[in-house]
């Protein structure tokens, strides 16, 4: 059983998606090959995908869907042979699963279109800082991704309970949204961005409007 993992992140080996891939592989205890949409022509990648018994595509959520380079890969992929499987893992910045709903629908449809046996779509929100934050903040996430990998290596399926834990909340409860917005007004959520801007020497420019029409400047 040949599994191929494709990392669909434009950031390749340096992004959050790569962290997801590595934790999954660690849990699986298998040396699955990983190829990168950001590093090779999509035609070559599609040809490699066609050779895999199971294709696992990991990607970040970009504007409610797959990154452009992943759609370009999809455009090159050919119908599956009988018994070929596909599965998807999507990590997103925003916390609620509802943000991924269009992509989940499309990925399931895409698997069906090409005649793949579909393992499903794993989603995880609130993942924006995964590759940057200290270890104690990612422990639970990593445990779950490893559990997902371990179960996959034994059963060639995604574990439903682990998938549900990773998926988290679908919508933000109204009460919580109000609380988030309250903290937002206090400015506390902007501190991280202010630090980026200060570190990059653009503290005064964070809210700049470089392409604004001259008349409304």
């Amino acid at each position, binding site marked *: 059983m040949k599994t191929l993992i494709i990392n669909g992140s*434009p*950031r390749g080996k340096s992004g959050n998606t790569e962290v997801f891939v590595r934790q999954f592989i660690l849990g699986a205890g298998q040396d699955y090959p990983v190829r990168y949409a950001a590093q090779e022509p999509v035609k070559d990648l599609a040809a490699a995908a066609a050779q895999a018994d199971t294709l696992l595509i990991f990607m970040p959520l970009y*504007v*409610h869907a797959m990154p452009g380079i992943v*759609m370009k890969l999809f455009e090159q992929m050919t119908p599956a042979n009988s018994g070929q499987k596909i599965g998807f893992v999507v990590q997103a910045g925003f916390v609620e699963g509802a943000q991924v709903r269009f992509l989940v629908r*499309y990925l399931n449809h895409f698997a069906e279109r090409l005649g793949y046996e579909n393992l499903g779509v794993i989603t995880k929100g609130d993942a924006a800082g995964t590759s940057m934050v200290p270890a104690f903040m990612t422990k639970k996430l990593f445990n779950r991704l490893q559990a997902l990998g371990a179960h996959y290596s034994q059963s060639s399926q995604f574990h439903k309970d682990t998938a549900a834990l990773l998926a988290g909340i679908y919508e933000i409860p109204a009460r919580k949204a109000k609380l988030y*917005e309250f903290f937002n007004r206090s400015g506390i959520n902007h501190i991280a961005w202010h630090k*980026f801007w200060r570190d990059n020497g653009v503290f005064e420019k964070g809210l700049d409007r470089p*392409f604004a029409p001259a008349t*409304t400047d």
Partner: protein
Amino acid sequence: MRTVVISEVDSIHIAENTFMLDLNARAIKDCAGCWSCWQKTPGRCAFKDLDDFYTAFLQADKAVFFIGVSCDFVSGRLKTLFDRMIPHYLPYTSWKTGESMHLPRYDRYPDVEVYYKGAFSSDSARQLYEEYLARVFYQFHIKRAVIKPLGEYEQCGVAI
């Protein structure tokens, strides 16, 4: 009324002085996910190949998209253009609407009309395509977005 046109459909004829981003003729660099537009050069993409379009888009009252259908979804090149629109929004998240949203960087954005051309494998695929586009423009703080099959544009013969 200033209009900007984004097209990946052949044989779209527009007025000479209307800015057109022709996705068939121009290869747009894929978003690199570098976050320069949020962290290092706020509002500016690390790639400069869309600067003329950005200027035209943010000056326009209306942006008209003539687009295709690819594997029952938006094409990869249009998706890349959507990814490259992120500089026009702030990294800040707001929950005012009850869900996570990025805040606008600019005071105003053009209204949007989308005319799509192509076949779908099912009605639900068409529905997903239209709902996805509506959501994108909602996230992009477009006040008014109309999404229709290209036939309706041709019938109405709206002048651009």
